[in-house]
């Protein structure tokens, strides 16, 4: 018997995704441990986002199994769930590489849409809500409190009534994370959360993400190109190249792996030195 804490939250086993003849991901296996930040890195086109899309149900994997373990008795096979149930039942939330906020809705509305299923139940599938029943109002108030709590955490309380599309880029990135967190996920998948952020914003992001991890409810899986972010906050790194895993371990182990360095910059020695400098070796 494995105990809950030793059982990984997400087990990816022999995941393969083909588009026609192209193998985007080939026989990939890795684990996302509970209470940790796991980073999925690799050069452009390595298949990282495809892995994300398989985990979150936007693509159905060609082969392989994706198991999400809530506890010893509750497992979800993600490849069999429709995408909305992956969020609602299996409790996996995600963000997108090209931010997908509801641009024409306010910041606050974005966070309330994220609590749709809870509120939908409370509103008696709109019937109770239509008559403004007390039970619904209470639940709506709770949802508002939760939204405001997250706005405070991402320092956007002042902009609650602005259109999400009006926010600066960095704020939009944080809002998207807050929106995903409003669905109370066990696993939060972040697709390049630091892309396009300035160093200060990047630092804030690190604090936000480690904060989420340290609260212990949500584990994180992130795709990232910014090595400073990856090396600072992740507990575990998985490296992909051409859809195949080439390394898997702690940040220190991975950054010393010659295969990783080679994958990133070819095998040229001068460039290896450069990348070593970049990752802080």
């Amino acid at each position, binding site marked *: 018997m494995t105990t809950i804490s030793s059982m990984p939250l997400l087990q990816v086993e022999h995941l393969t995704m083909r*588009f026609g003849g192209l193998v985007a991901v080939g026989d990939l296996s890795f684990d996302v441990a509970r209470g940790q930040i796991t980073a999925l890195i690799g050069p452009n086109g390595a298949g990282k986002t495809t892995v994300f*899309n398989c985990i979150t149900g936007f*693509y159905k994997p060609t082969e392989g199994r994706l198991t999400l373990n809530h506890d010893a008795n509750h497992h979800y096979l993600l490849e069999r769930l429709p995408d909305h149930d992956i969020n609602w039942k299996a409790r996996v939330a995600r963000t997108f590489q090209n931010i997908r906020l509801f641009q024409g809705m306010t910041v606050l509305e974005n966070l309330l849409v994220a609590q749709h299923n809870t509120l939908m139940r409370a509103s008696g599938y709109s019937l109770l809500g239509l008559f403004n029943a007390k039970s619904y109002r209470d639940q709506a108030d709770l949802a508002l409190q939760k939204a405001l709590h997250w706005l405070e955490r991402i320092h956007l309380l002042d902009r609650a009534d602005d259109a999400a599309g009006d926010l600066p880029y960095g704020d939009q990135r944080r809002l998207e994370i807050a929106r995903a967190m409003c669905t109370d996920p066990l696993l939060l998948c972040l697709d390049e959360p630091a892309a396009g952020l300035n160093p200060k914003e990047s630092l804030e992001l690190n604090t936000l993400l480690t904060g989420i991890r340290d609260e212990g409810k949500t584990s994180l899986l992130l795709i990232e190109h910014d090595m400073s972010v990856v090396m600072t906050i992740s507990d575990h790194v998985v490296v992909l190249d051409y859809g195949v895993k080439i390394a898997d371990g702690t940040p220190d182990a991975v950054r010393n792996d010659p295969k990783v360095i080679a994958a990133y910059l070819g095998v040229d020695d001068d460039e290896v030195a450069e990348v070593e400098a970049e990752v802080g070796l």
Partner: protein
Amino acid sequence: MAIFIQQLINGLTLGSIYGLIAIGYTMVFGIIGMVNFAHGDVFMVSAFVALLLFMIFTTLLHWALVPALLVVLVLAMAITGLWNWTIERTAYRPLRGSFRLAPLISAIGMSILLSNLIQVIQGPRNKPVPPMFTQVIPIYEENGYVAGIGYKQIVIMVVTAVLLALFWYLVQKTPLGRAQRACEQDQKMAALLGIDVDRTISLTFVMGAALAAVAGVMYIMYYGVVNFADGFVPGVKAFTAAVLGGIGSLPGAVIGGLLIGLIETMWSAYFSIDYKDVAAFSLLAITLVFLPTGLLGRPEVEKV
């Protein structure tokens, strides 16, 4: 069997007409991603233009039938091209890149405008022309029923085939065709590479209209009558053909057109002529639901 052969011939003739109209839909959709709702009415306008030109050349100028038809065909293509050029220039181009529904509503308005314009300036009644090429070549006989192919059916199929070949060459082998395909892929990039996107789109509309005009001439020849309301149903059927063949694909549009023509004639012969339009519309719905990329369309991978 004789009935089957006869319906096969009729279906292919009708299908040629639908295929010609379908190309206009498919090209415009391919290049600007818009369902040109008024295309069916452009076809109807072209049929009227052809009818009037035909009358001018045969009754006023007393030309012989064959040269008159040839000139009518060329002139109708040019005039309908000008119509569609004007429509694109005034009703669609200013809306390009704005709200997605705006060009669609504009096109619906244009469709209403065109059919009612023709009603007002040409009158609401059917316009019959004297029958032409009435000879029929018998090809199969069974129990006294003779299946045959009419001269006009031969003319329609031959003209369609020749023009499609010409058109195919134009799109595949000329710089214009290359520019069109480039705009289809990525308008911004095409513009950066020095392609005049506006001109290419205009020419696409002109080409679509020219082929619709061919269909218009054939329609007049085949049915011998046209009415201001005749744009809508052939338009929807041609659109069905374009979707069935895979929207964006030129051979697909032709194959789709032939299929729709065959289905319509076979359905009329063997099931119910009253429900032939229901069959066409149902086919459209079924295709879109179960085969949204059509027979020859490329599958679309959702970008997340």
